[in-house]
């Protein structure tokens, strides 16, 4: 006779995992805006979800803006701290991403004002080791050199130009939102982004002709 202990117990007899497929009724993820409204209304755990969604791109943006990994981490931390502290200022009609990058801009400005740092290290040895899509050693070396040149070019760009260019490259931000973050008109944001991209291109191509020694 089979004892009760020998009967396999399904973890979720009426649940969604027993057939091994994806959950049948997975609710759609809550949009950022809804999560931030919940944070504003006191559900602070939602801030953890927002962090998981956005800390990567935010850190990448700040890392390129400052050229300093450690500073980018510090600024990103301050951004999330301010999101918590000033959550009551989040407006129902706002865009979460634009609000977050507006805070990030202010935090980065504070960093530049206090550190008077000249961003972007010229030393290519400090650059990232991974190079996507480069299969051979030669291609890897070429890609590294390319990245090094672009880092240098970014570092030589005016900070305002670097800022508008990096914001314009964020897929989730429209030009209207970029303009809102930069506190200028949409037309001005377009012109500034275009001018910045041309300036970066000129620096980058010039450096390619005169490689780093």
């Amino acid at each position, binding site marked *: 006779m089979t004892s009760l202990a020998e009967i396999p117990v399904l973890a979720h007899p009426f649940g969604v995992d027993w057939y091994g497929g994806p959950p049948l009724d997975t609710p759609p993820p809550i949009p950022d805006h809804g999560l931030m409204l919940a944070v*504003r*209304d*006191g559900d*602070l*755990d939602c*801030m*953890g979800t927002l*962090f998981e969604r956005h*800390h*990567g791109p935010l*850190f*990448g943006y700040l*890392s*390129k803006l400052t050229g300093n*990994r450690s500073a*980018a*981490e510090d600024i*990103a*931390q301050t951004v*999330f*701290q301010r999101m*918590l502290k000033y959550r*009551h200022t989040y407006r129902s009609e706002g865009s979460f991403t634009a609000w977050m990058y507006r805070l990030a801009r202010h935090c980065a400005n504070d960093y530049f004002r206090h550190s008077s740092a000249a961003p972007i290290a010229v030393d290519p040895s400090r650059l*990232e080791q*991974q*190079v*996507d899509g480069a299969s051979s050693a030669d291609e890897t070396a070429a*890609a590294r050199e*390319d*990245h090094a040149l*672009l*880092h240098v070019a*970014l570092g030589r760009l005016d900070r305002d130009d670097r800022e508008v*260019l990096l914001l*314009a*490259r964020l*897929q989730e931000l*429209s*030009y209207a939102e970029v303009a809102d973050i930069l506190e200028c008109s949409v037309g001005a944001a*377009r*012109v500034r*982004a*275009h001018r910045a*991209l*041309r300036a*970066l*291109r000129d620096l*980058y*191509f010039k450096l390619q002709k005169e490689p780093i020694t």
Partner: protein
Amino acid sequence: MNCTSCLERMTELACGKLDEKTAASLRGHMDSCPECRREFATLTRTVESLDALPSRAPSERLRAQLMGDIETEKLTLRSQADWATSIRSAARPRAGRRFPWTLLLLQGLGACALAAVGFIAGERTATERQVADLRARVDTMGQLVEQSVLEKRTTGERLETVLTAGASTKPDERVIDGLINSMAFDSSVNVRLNALGALYAHANQDVVRAAVIACLPRETSPLMQVSMIDFLVAARAHEASPELRSLLVDSKANGDVRESARRAMDLL
């Protein structure tokens, strides 16, 4: 589309931020304009290189710090919300000790009330409606005060809430708790002062006096401390003597505060 218009929107096209119609128009122009095509190719290559810049994830320190911040904030919110309640529960037993005959009196009154039920039955429906209406109004007031503290709205909004709550003629526990919270925790001295002013009308309640006494040592504004001491004197709060004595001998306390504490000690 001419070269000038094409150049103006070229970066948007390279960044993928143009609508299909405008993008098609730009591409159409570039098909017939080698100069714009060349310009676009170099810009696109720069954008692609920019996107290809590798970016490692931040360290775990960032996550750990944020989770710590969230927990700290949650604790702060919880402690603020619980604070007035704890003060209230701490004040209640003392009231019970002071009036040991209250229970007997209440029992007698309860018996009389039961006997009177038959007489007032006809009026019950109207009275219940009135009570429910009053309670709803008071609940709304309590929520307003609580939210104003917890959500940290603008100073003007918080001040307005405190003033409105202070003007309430028959506030319930939640309104008074809200005022106590504002007096204890609000970041604006102006709001704290007005909350204290609103509490004058309830100075006969043990919980209010206990709250002011508890806040006195942790208050940072001398103006607020002097006002609290005045409040305690006006409320004849003899139980404040230990706190006043501590202020009196505290060499770090503001001179005006110490002088107020000395005067209060004399008066009490």
